[in-house]
């Protein structure tokens, strides 16, 4: 029933700094099916962000193939990649990457201003809705430097959600959040996942990974582990338990 949404085969990424060559990814093959919620783990420097950047069409592999919903990504030009990022993918960066001196609402609206097809009928309304989703409905006109790290992270999540992408790629989305907010974000992710969204989330914490449906572990740019989570935890229930 589930279709293969992403297929990586023998993907390598080599960074060369002068003479030195760093192999960030050393031949990763991975299939992701629509509706999966994948947690990517691994020690620092194991290539998680590099993998996410390639999945997010922000970077291209040195070798190997990447097909996204049947499209061979390495054959696309810069404009086509931009359109893909705009319509199909939502990216939550490890370091927020919000526009400075720009309000939360404007930051969330930004991706839609680059959408040629105006898929979202009312950008303003959808942006407010997305910010309400992440619990920031009363911070609409705050600029990033007037928000806490966790709040900035949630604005970034709202920005990734608002375009209704097919896949959300989140690089340590809960890294800066306290356990309660982490649970709230996980609850949101699980809800979106149940609605059919594919999620790939990098995390350091085993606890957080337990909410996903599949766990992938990297070491030195190679797949170490790739297994289903047999009984994922339910964030909604955990939230209720914390509240009571």
């Amino acid at each position: 029933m589930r279709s293969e949404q992403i297929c990586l085969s023998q993907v390598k990424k080599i960074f060369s700094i002068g003479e030195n060559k760093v192999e960030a990814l050393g031949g990763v093959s991975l299939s992701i099916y629509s509706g999966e919620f994948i947690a990517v783990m691994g020690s620092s420097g194991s290539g998680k962000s590099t993998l996410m950047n390639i999945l997010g069409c922000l970077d291209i592999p040195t070798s190997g193939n990447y097909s996204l919903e049947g499209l061979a990504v390495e054959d696309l030009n810069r404009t086509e990649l931009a359109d893909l990022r705009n319509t199909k993918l939502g990216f939550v960066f490890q370091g927020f990457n919000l526009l400075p001196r720009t309000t939360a609402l404007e930051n969330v609206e930004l991706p839609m201003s680059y959408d040629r097809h105006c898929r979202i009928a009312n950008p303003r309304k959808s942006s407010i809705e997305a910010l309400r989703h992440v619990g920031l409905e009363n911070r609409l006109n705050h600029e990033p430097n007037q928000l806490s790290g966790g709040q900035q992270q949630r604005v970034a999540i709202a920005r990734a959600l608002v375009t209704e992408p097919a896949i959300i790629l989140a690089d340590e989305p809960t890294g800066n959040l306290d356990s309660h907010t982490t649970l709230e974000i996980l609850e949101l992710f699980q809800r979106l996942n149940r609605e059919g969204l594919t999620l790939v989330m990098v995390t350091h914490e085993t606890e957080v990974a337990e909410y996903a449906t599949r766990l992938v572990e990297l070491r030195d740019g190679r797949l170490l582990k790739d297994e289903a989570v047999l009984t994922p935890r339910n964030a909604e229930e955990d939230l209720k338990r914390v509240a009571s």
Partner: protein
Amino acid sequence: MKFHKLIIVALKSIARNKMRSLLTMLGVIIGVGSVITMVALGEGSQKDIENDVVSLGTNLLMVRPGSIKSGGVRGGAGSRPSLSMKDVSRLKQSATLLRWVSAEVRANGQVIAGNNNWNTTITGVAPEYLSIRNYQIATGSFFTHRDCKTRAKVAVLGKTVADELFPNESPVGARLRIRNVPFMVIGVLAEKGQSSMGNDQDDIILAPDSTVLFRLSNGKFVNDISASAVSSEQMDAAKAELTALLRSEHRLTAKDEDDFGVRDQTEIIEIATQVTGTLTLLLSSVAGVSLLVGGIGIMNIMLVSVTERTREIGIRLAIGARPFDILAQFLVEAAILSLFGGLIGILSGLGAAWAVGMLLGVSAVINPTVVLIAVLFTSGVGVSFGFYPARKAANLNPIEALRYE
């Protein structure tokens, strides 16, 4: 990204760095401003000269002795006396396309009236001269054909001469001596003022042609002949007729060159405006160079801006901005900067032209075409000098841009 959004983004970024934007625009402001000022003043003084020459007379043809084409060992125009009263009579009798003809016989000399004296030029002319040169009589009267025939010793003074010689009394009816020849003043000319070339058109004395010719000059040759064609359309025909008549009067054969030269007002205007034209061109090109420097200033600031905003560009690219969107964003910003600069430049240029014009007594003529060209040129400068930095921004790799510190 939609165009109006691009403009809003550009305006925000310009407003964020007000001082820097102003300094960037300064180059364009100075460039456009000086171009506008120079052209306005240049065209204004050209117009002034044209008006002056037109006020010299209506459908004026001026004949000078000697060849106009000076070359070889011959002297310049007017160096060889060849015009005489006989030529004037011939033209008066035979020309059909000339309404009025008058000789001009000039003599310089000391003019004495009572205790006052003044050195000026006395011009001997026919009564028609008044009409040919658009002079008006202020007080008294002008001399007649009879006066010319009888070599009457009467004179009509320009305003300057009248003021110098008769500061306290009315000159009409007074006596004066020109090189010891006694004259009676019968009239004073209305004031004409200074010409744009700076000579005082009221510093003259007019007297009957024969009087000046025989009493104050050599008795043979006249300096110039002024004539007025019947209409402006007939100027060329009148010029041809005049030339033919003088050639036959001088018994020139077909292979002889003209021993006189005829000029009309258009030619006089051309000669007079050549200098101001060259000057305007020179000053405008200097101003144009400053516009170029202004453009380079814009490029410089845009390059700084691209470097400074590398992360921002990375974020925009990462969330789906096409390279073209980034290119357009920086181009629009550069165009707005230079267009703003251009508009301020136009306003200050118009102001400066007006102020300098007032100060120097030159009129400033605002040419809408020049203003339009200035606007187009400045936006062109903005776009072309903004292109390199904008393309640099658009070609950034999203990940590298995001990692930029």
